[in-house]
């Protein structure tokens, strides 16, 4: 997002309308901000009312330049709109509820805005996207998938259609248990997402995200050749992006997909040259050696995995460092290096203890608990 959109010169015309704040969620000094304005995924955009110190709009994920400019307009609308019965005012109320974390109420308000706006309302695509995400966040998986079908499928070809459908498919794929609505929803949504993945002019990371969801759908269906075909398509997309991308930074922004595609193809070595090039071009960035460590670990090259993890650890900070420790521990264990394993786990647990609580949540907390248990076992 930062590499693709926020550096775009067209956004300079927006400069005077806002104060622009960049928050690196991995930095300890931002723990207070994150406690006050929590988020579950990155990137997240907020528009914040500086008088009340309240968020009026919250947006998960990437956006193109035009879409971001519309979101900024919507943020101003949410800040200024009070009352009124039009669809824009209803959307503003929904956005404020959503930004405040009241996602169930927000979903109802987005539905109201859609009814008031009708089929030709200019903000309809974004409202549909926000509705599906609000239902996703409210753990309303069935309604999320249903809204993607009833509202998302009615949108014209574009990023909002693609993302609403894909988030709906994600809701169905991740639904707990196997409720009766799930299989029919997947059956309807998957071909729509497949078609959407071919919409021209999608952001590269959006298109890669769609292919990632489609690969998960094939995996869940037990269709290994189908999942492999999607991974191959993702790899071709990444190769094409690498050829047309002028900077190492832009190329590296898709490295995580290079790793996931290579792993899905059971060919981890495929992504090694690109990751080595990223490490050389971006020597202060911990991500390339971390991703190389993942690839080397999969290739059974444990010594190289440990060395790459060490390079990553020397550059990393914040909760991400714990995932690197976890990976290094896995390679050391595979090597049979008990002393190295114990030392790494002890260092990791001590580091976790030094982080603010807000940075050790969810998946990170589970990793820390797992490493603590392994350390106790290693110490006998």
């Amino acid at each position, binding site marked *: *997002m*930062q*590499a693709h959109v*926020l*550096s*775009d*010169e067209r956004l*300079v015309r927006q*400069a005077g309308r*806002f*104060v*622009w*704040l*960049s*928050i*690196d*969620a*991995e930095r300890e000094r*931002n723990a*207070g*901000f994150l406690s006050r304005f929590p*988020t*579950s*995924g990155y*990137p*997240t*955009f907020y*528009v*914040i009312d*500086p008088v009340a110190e309240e968020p009026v709009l919250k947006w*998960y*994920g*990437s956006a193109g330049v035009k879409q971001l400019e519309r979101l*900024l307009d919507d943020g101003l609308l949410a800040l200024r709109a009070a009352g009124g019965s039009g669809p824009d005012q209803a959307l503003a109320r929904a956005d404020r509820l959503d930004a405040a974390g009241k996602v169930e109420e927000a979903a109802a308000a987005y539905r109201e805005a859609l009814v008031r706006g009708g089929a030709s309302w200019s903000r309809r695509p974004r409202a549909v996207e926000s509705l599906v*995400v609000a239902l*996703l966040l409210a753990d309303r998986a069935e309604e999320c998938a249903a809204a993607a079908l009833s509202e998302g499928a009615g949108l014209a070809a574009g990023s909002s259609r*693609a*993302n*609403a459908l894909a*988030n709906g498919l994600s*809701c169905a794929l991740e639904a707990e248990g196997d409720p009766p609505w799930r299989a029919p929803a997947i059956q309807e949504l998957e071909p729509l997402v497949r078609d959407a993945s071919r919409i021209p002019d999608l952001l590269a990371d*959006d298109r890669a*995200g*769609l292919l*990632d*969801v489609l690969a998960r759908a094939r995996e869940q269906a037990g269709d290994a050749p189908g999942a492999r075909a999607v991974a191959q398509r993702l790899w071709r997309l990444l190769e094409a992006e690498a050829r047309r991308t002028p900077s190492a*930074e832009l190329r*590296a*922004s898709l490295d*995580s997909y290079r*790793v996931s595609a290579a792993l899905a193809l059971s060919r981890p070595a495929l992504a090694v040259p690109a990751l080595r090039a990223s490490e050389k071009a*971006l020597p202060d*960035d*911990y*991500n390339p050696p971390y*991703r190389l460590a993942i690839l080397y670990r999969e290739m059974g090259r444990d010594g190289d995995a440990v060395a790459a993890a060490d390079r990553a650890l020397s550059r990393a900070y*914040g909760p991400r460092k714990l*995932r690197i420790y976890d990976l290094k521990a896995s390679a050391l264990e595979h090597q049979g290096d008990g002393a190295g394993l114990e030392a790494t786990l002890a260092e990791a647990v001590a580091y976790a203890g030094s982080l603010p609580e807000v940075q050790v949540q969810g*998946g*990170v907390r589970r990793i820390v608990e797992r490493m603590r248990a392994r350390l106790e076992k290693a110490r006998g």
Partner: protein
Amino acid sequence: MRAFLLAALLGIPAVLPAPAAAARGGLPWVRDDYAGALSRARARKVPIVVDVWAPW
């Protein structure tokens, strides 16, 4: 909006594209200083746009 939002929310690792920390274009970003941004926004009477990101 990323299609893999649910995966991100569930903490499924290693699928998020990495933003590049340095690429910030011509916008006058305030880095990692909410109090400073708040003070400027109140003085100028404009809202704050916040990009919350992670370097992975």
